C-alpha cells in the first residue's frame, strides 16, 4: 500500500444507491442477484411491516401495547438487511429492530408480548437465531462480536449482524466492538441505521466524523455508506459484507442513511425538533414507493397487490395481538424461578409473599 505524508486524512464518501428515486436501476454492478419471486417477497415484507407499524401505533394508543418504537421509513434497512442473510446467521437487534427478528423467525405475537412487558416475548424459539431487543444502547454490538467469535471458533460459516443507530455509534461499546472485530477478524456486520436523530439530538450534534462509516477506519475493518431508503442497495451491501465475512475476511461497518417517519416512541413529539419541510423531503424518498415503482415497471407489482398485503397484514396483526392478550400473565414466583437455573433457598422463601 502506498503511503501518504504523516497526517491521516480521509475523504467524504458517497452513499451507494442501486435504485433511483424514480425506481430505475442506476448501478447495475451492485444490483443483487434476486429472482422475481424474491423481489416480490421483499416488497411484501416492506408493505407488511409498514402496516404492522401503523397498527402497532394505534394499539399503543389504545393501551394494548407498551413501549413501542415505530419503524416506518426504515423498512428498506430492516427488511432488506435481514433478507440478505441466511436463517443460520445471528441477529442482535437494538430496541427498534423488531422487524428484523420477526422476519428472522420470532413469532409476531411474541414481539407484541415483549412490548406488553411479558417475559415470553423474549423466549426465542429454538432454531431462531436472534437475541431479544436491547435497551442499553450499544451492548448488543459486543454480543454480536462475541457470537461471531463463537462462529469462528466453531469453524462455522455463519455471520452475526447487529443494529444500532447514529446515536449508538457514539457509545464506547461501539468502538470496543469494532476494534475487537478488527483484531480477531470476526464474521460480523455492524449495521448502523442513521435515521438522523438520537431521540431528539440531530446527527450534526452527534459526531464530527465525516460519516459513521469512517469510524471503521480506526478499527481496521471495512466501512461502507449506503442509501438506506433503497432496499436493493441495502441487500447488495449486506450480501457483500456477509460473503466477505464467510470467506474469513472479517467485519464490515455499514452506515445506511435513512429516516424514521414517526417520532422516536409513542411518548415522543417529533415536531419539537424536526421541521415539516424536512419530514416532507424524506417522505418523498419513501423506500416502499421507490421499490413499488421499480416493480410496477417490471410488471411484478400493482396497487392491488399493496392493498391485498395490507389486508393480510391487518388480519395477521389482529390475530397475533389477540394471541398476545390471551397469553397467561406472568407471575412473581415464575419470575423468581427465572433468575437462576436452580432457584436458591432464599429466593424460594421469597415466593411466599406472592402466593
Amino acid at each position, binding site marked *: 500500500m502506498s503511503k501518504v505524508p504523516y497526517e491521516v486524512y480521509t475523504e467524504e464518501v458517497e452513499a451507494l444507491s442501486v435504485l433511483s428515486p424514480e425506481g430505475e436501476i442506476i448501478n447495475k454492478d451492485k444490483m443483487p442477484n434476486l429472482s422475481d419471486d424474491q423481489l416480490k417477497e421483499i416488497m411484501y415484507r416492506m408493505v407488511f411491516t409498514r402496516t404492522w407499524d401503523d397498527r402497532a401505533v394505534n394499539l399503543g394508543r389504545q393501551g394494548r401495547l407498551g413501549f413501542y418504537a415505530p419503524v416506518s421509513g426504515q423498512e428498506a434497512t430492516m427488511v432488506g438487511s435481514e433478507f440478505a442473510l441466511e436463517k443460520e446467521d445471528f441477529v442482535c437487534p437494538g430496541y427498534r429492530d423488531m422487524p428484523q427478528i420477526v422476519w428472522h423467525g420470532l413469532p409476531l405475537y411474541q414481539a407484541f408480548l415483549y412490548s406488553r412487558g411479558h417475559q415470553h416475548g423474549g*423466549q426465542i424459539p429454538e432454531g431462531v437465531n436472534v437475541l431479544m431487543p436491547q435497551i442499553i444502547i450499544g451492548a448488543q454490538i*459486543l454480543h454480536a*462480536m*462475541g*457470537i461471531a467469535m463463537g462462529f469462528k471458533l466453531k469453524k462455522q460459516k455463519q455471520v452475526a449482524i447487529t443494529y444500532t443507530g447514529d446515536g449508538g455509534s457514539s457509545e464506547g461499546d461501539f468502538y*470496543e466492538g469494532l476494534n475487537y472485530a478488527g483484531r480477531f477478524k470476526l464474521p460480523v456486520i455492524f449495521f448502523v441505521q442513521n435515521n438522523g436523530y438520537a431521540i431528539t439530538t440531530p446527527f450534526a450534534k452527534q459526531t464530527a466524523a465525516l460519516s459513521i462509516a469512517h469510524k471503521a477506519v480506526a478499527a481496521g475493518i471495512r466501512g461502507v455508506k449506503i442509501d438506506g431508503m433503497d432496499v436493493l442497495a441495502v441487500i447488495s451491501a449486506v450480501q457483500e459484507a456477509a460473503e466477505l465475512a464467510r470467506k474469513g475476511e472479517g467485519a464490515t461497518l455499514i452506515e445506511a442513511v435513512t429516516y424514521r417517519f414517526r417520532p422516536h416512541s409513542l411518548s415522543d413529539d417529533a415536531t419539537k425538533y424536526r421541521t415539516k419541510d424536512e419530514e416532507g423531503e424524506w417522505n418523498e424518498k419513501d423506500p416502499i414507493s421507490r421499490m413499488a415503482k421499480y416493480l410496477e415497471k417490471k410488471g411484478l407489482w400493482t396497487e392491488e397487490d399493496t392493498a391485498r398485503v395490507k389486508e393480510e397484514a391487518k388480519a395477521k396483526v389482529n390475530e397475533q395481538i389477540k394471541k398476545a392478550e390471551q397469553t397467561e400473565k406472568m407471575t412473581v414466583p415464575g419470575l423468581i424461578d*427465572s*433468575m*437462576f*437455573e436452580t432457584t436458591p433457598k432464599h429466593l424460594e422463601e421469597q415466593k411466599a409473599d406472592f402466593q
Partner: protein
Amino acid sequence: MAQMNMKEAIRDAMRVEMKRDPNVVVFGEDVGNVGGVFRATEGLQKEFGEERIFDTPLAESAIGGLAVGLGIQGFRPVAEIQFVGFIYEALDQMFVQAARMRYRSGGRYNAPIVFRTPFGGGVKAAELHTDSLEGLAVQTPGIKVVVPSNPYDAKGLLIAAIRDNDPVFFMEHLNLYHAFRAEVPEEDYTVEIGKANVVREGSDVTIIAYGMMVHTATKAADELEKTKGIKAEVIDLRTLNPLDIDTLVASVKKTNRAIVVQEAQKTSGVAAEVIAQINEKAILHLEAPVLRVAGPDTVYPFAQIEDTWLPTPARIIAAVNKVMEF
C-alpha cells in the same frame, strides 16, 4: 495431593476444566502469552493453544460482551478482569447483560460465565486495584458471588463456578495468592457454591468473615482463646450470593453471639445483610446485638494508611469483647 498456593490452585482449576470440557475458553488482558499480571494462567496457552486462551485488546466492557456472546454460542467463558476497579468499565455486561440473560430470554439463553478478578487490600497496590466491590455484586439479581479464602476452596469453587450455568463473579484476594500453601487434590473436585464453612469451632461467639478476613478473624480467635479463654467459632462464608444462612443460624443458636467482619465499607454491605438475615431467623437466640467490623465509609485508601484502614485482629477482639460483655 499436591502443595499449592491459592494462585496455583486457581490455575489448576482452569487447567482441569479446559482439559475436561473443550467449550471452556479463557481470555482477558495479558492472560495468554505471559499468563496474566499475577501469572494465574501461566502455561495454559502453551498447553491449550491460542484459540482456547487468548489476550484481548484493552477494553473491559468488550471482555464482558465477548463472554456473553460466547456463552450464547455454547462456550463456557472464564473472563479475567485484570483488577477489581476495572469492573466499573464492564458493569453493564457483567451485572446487566450476563446477569439478566436467563430472565430476559425466559430461560432460552443463559450466561455460563465466570468473571474472575483479583481484589482486596494490604498489598500496597495502585488506586482501584484493591477495593472490595462485592457489595455491588450482591445487590445485583442473577449473578452469584464467590470469594475463596484458601487453595483447596479456590480450586473446588472455581471448578464449580465454571460448571455453573449461571454467571459467577469470582473474587480472588490479592493477599492470598501467595500467602501459604496447602494440600490440594490434583484431580477434579468441586466445593459447592452457596455453602459456608466452619473453619474453627467454638461455643462462645461466632465470627463470620470471608476472603482474607477469615485469616484475620482466626488470628483474633486464637488470641481470644489464649488470653481470655473465649472460644470463638469462625465461619468462612465462601459464597456471598446465595448466602448460606442455615450454617450461620446453626452457629448462632449454639453461641448466641456473633460479629461479622468484612474489608468492605461498613454501610449496606454483606455484613449488614448477614445481620439482617440472622435477625429474621434467630433473633430469640441472640444475647447481644450482632456487630460489624469493617472498613469505614470512605473510598479505599491510598497505600500509606491501608493497614490501619483494614480490619485488624485488635478491632475484631474489641468487637467480640463488646458482645461478650453486653
